[in-house]
């Protein structure tokens, strides 16, 4: 499998505190990867770097077939290049309907003029309905996103990510605040998504990660502590010490 994203030797410090320390990480095309680590390990910061929100002090981030550097691109350019991101706290546009949220996320020309003259085609509407069905929000399609429950907002955000048709999906704690049934559904959705694109999932819940059945990367104090199958990393002594032992 070819490499889709390569992070090498990246460091970031906030006021002298090294949140990310010489981190290297690779994801292949259509790979599902879980990233775990204790609070403050730098998981969210790691996503911030890839998506252009935080500029690293050192290191490289290469992406795609030509290995383009993401560090010189703006957030919106990175997103257009196919990197989608789900935030830890669900961030949907609460003032707008579920349908509008999905329609905005749909992969179409993002320039102001194209958007101004955009009118949804029958295919666009059908796609929105299909997505709503996938995330179980069909009955809520025309309700304001702000009226949804926490778990439903998480799903809406996942739906918006799928609508973007990203090549690389970064998902920060997707199952937080979900019921066991919803978690299971989310696992299925993520596995399904990883068939056609690379998916990186940050998660605390070990059971959830186990069910993803994928390679796991353990982060600690801003660098990779261990990498491998879930059984491999859970047997690792250092991992037990800093993470599982707590």
């Amino acid at each position: 499998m070819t490499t889709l994203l390569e992070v090498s030797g990246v460091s970031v410090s906030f006021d002298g505190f090294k949140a990310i320390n010489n981190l290297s990480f690779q994801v292949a095309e259509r790979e599902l990867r879980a990233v775990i680590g204790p609070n403050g390990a730098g998981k969210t910061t790691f996503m911030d770097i890839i998506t252009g929100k935080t500029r690293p002090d050192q290191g490289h981030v290469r992406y795609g077939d030509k290995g383009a550097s993401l560090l010189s691109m703006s957030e919106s350019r990175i997103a257009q290049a196919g990197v989608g991101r789900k935030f830890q706290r669900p961030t949907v546009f609460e003032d707008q309907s579920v349908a509008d949220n999905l329609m905005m996320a749909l992969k179409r020309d993002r320039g102001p003029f194209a958007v101004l003259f955009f009118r949804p085609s029958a295919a666009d509407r059908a796609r929105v309905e299909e997505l709503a069905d996938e995330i179980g929000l069909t009955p809520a399609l025309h309700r304001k996103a702000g009226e949804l429950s926490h778990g439903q907002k998480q799903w809406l955000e996942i739906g918006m990510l799928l609508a973007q048709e990203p090549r690389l999906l970064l998902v920060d704690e997707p199952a937080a605040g979900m019921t066991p049934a919803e978690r299971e559904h989310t696992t299925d959705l993520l596995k399904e998504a990883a068939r056609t694109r690379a998916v990186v999932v940050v998660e605390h819940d070990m059971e959830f990660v186990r069910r993803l059945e994928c390679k796991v990367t353990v982060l600690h104090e801003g660098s990779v502590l261990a990498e491998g199958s879930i059984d491999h990393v859970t047997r690792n002594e250092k991992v037990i010490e800093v993470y599982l032992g707590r």
Partner: protein
Amino acid sequence: MPADTTARSSSWRNSSGDSGGITPRSGPFLLRHPSVMVFIALLALFTLGVTILSEGFGIGAISTSFVKTLGKTLCLCLVALAMDLVWGYCGILSLGHMAFFGLGGYAIGMWLMYARTEIIVVESLAAAELPPTPQEISDGIAAQIFGVVGASEFPPVWAFAHSLPLQLAAVVLVPGLLALVFGWLAFRSRVTGVYLSILTQAMTLALSLYLFQNDSGLRGNNGLSGLQNLPGLGDMPQSVVSIWFLWASALALGAGYLLCAWIVSGKFGSVIRAIRDDEARVRFLGYPVEAFKLAVFTVTAVIAGIAGALYYPQAGIINPAEIAPIASIYLAVWVAIGGRGRLYGAVIGAAFVSLLSTWFTGGQAPDVNLGFYRIHWVDWWTVLLGLSFVAVTLFAPRGIGGLVDLIAERRHPDRHGADLGPDQGALREKEADQ
């Protein structure tokens, strides 16, 4: 399933219309947005009504000066629409849009003053034995216009003042270009929130201070005057001209309303409201946020310029004090009181507050005698306005326009938290157990 969805989308339609998204998704634009139709109809009725009651074309129940006040109010409603688009929808609290309004006024004022002075000068020179040369005419006009600031030559900014089409182009281009350059610099460096507001205040302050100087080329603090007289139509009574301008202002407001409603109704409206609510998130969706902000800022500056170009011929005079920073702050206050984030809210706010302001500051409002103190409204109106602004911000953030929601909610009970259907309802119960 599709049939079901359509049924829902119409039954859940929000009657306030402009909030977008929840409106039915097919049919002609006006049918999908009933509030726009209502607005246009009311505006037409209002304009007709005033015409019938006017001195120029009707029974004379309304004085010409009041017709002018109404016409000016329509222009203020138009600039308030622009403010609502940029602030209420896109979340950019610009405190500089009255500068664009003033620039539009200056642009048209230059032609009005030039062309009218030209007629006077040509008439006075016609008595001479030799026909006057173009240079003599030009010098004569310059002496007339710039005598007050001790100059007798045309400054470079007047190069196109002789041409109506060029000055009309300036009405659009000058505010548009200024907004484009200013916005590009500000948005590119990601200046947002209160810093952006301060920056726009600085822009309008700088502009007004510059115009106050005699060598700015725009007659310093004298400003441009006599703008109510249309060149070549000297014998047309003001009672007639005022109605023309009322109609022109109403047309511009109607067109502006349609344009704004169209802009905010589609995906563009979705995106700018999303920018208002969470601009970082919009970036991660791949939208170039800065380009959207710049587009909205520039378009609204152009609308403001057009509104100004219609306002000042009715006011008759424009001077740099009109561009003072406080004017733009008032504009924001109107929109806040009317209810930002809905177009009719901006119109209601501008009309209501500016007419009330005319009444209070015009000395017609009866004084209130408290026994120990007499409240003269001329002095206390600004205090009342300030207090209302604070009250609206604290207690009725949806403004006067929010009253429409109260009526709408009575008809459509608040669905917040209602069941989504058997399955999701069950899920929600489980959630509650956790």
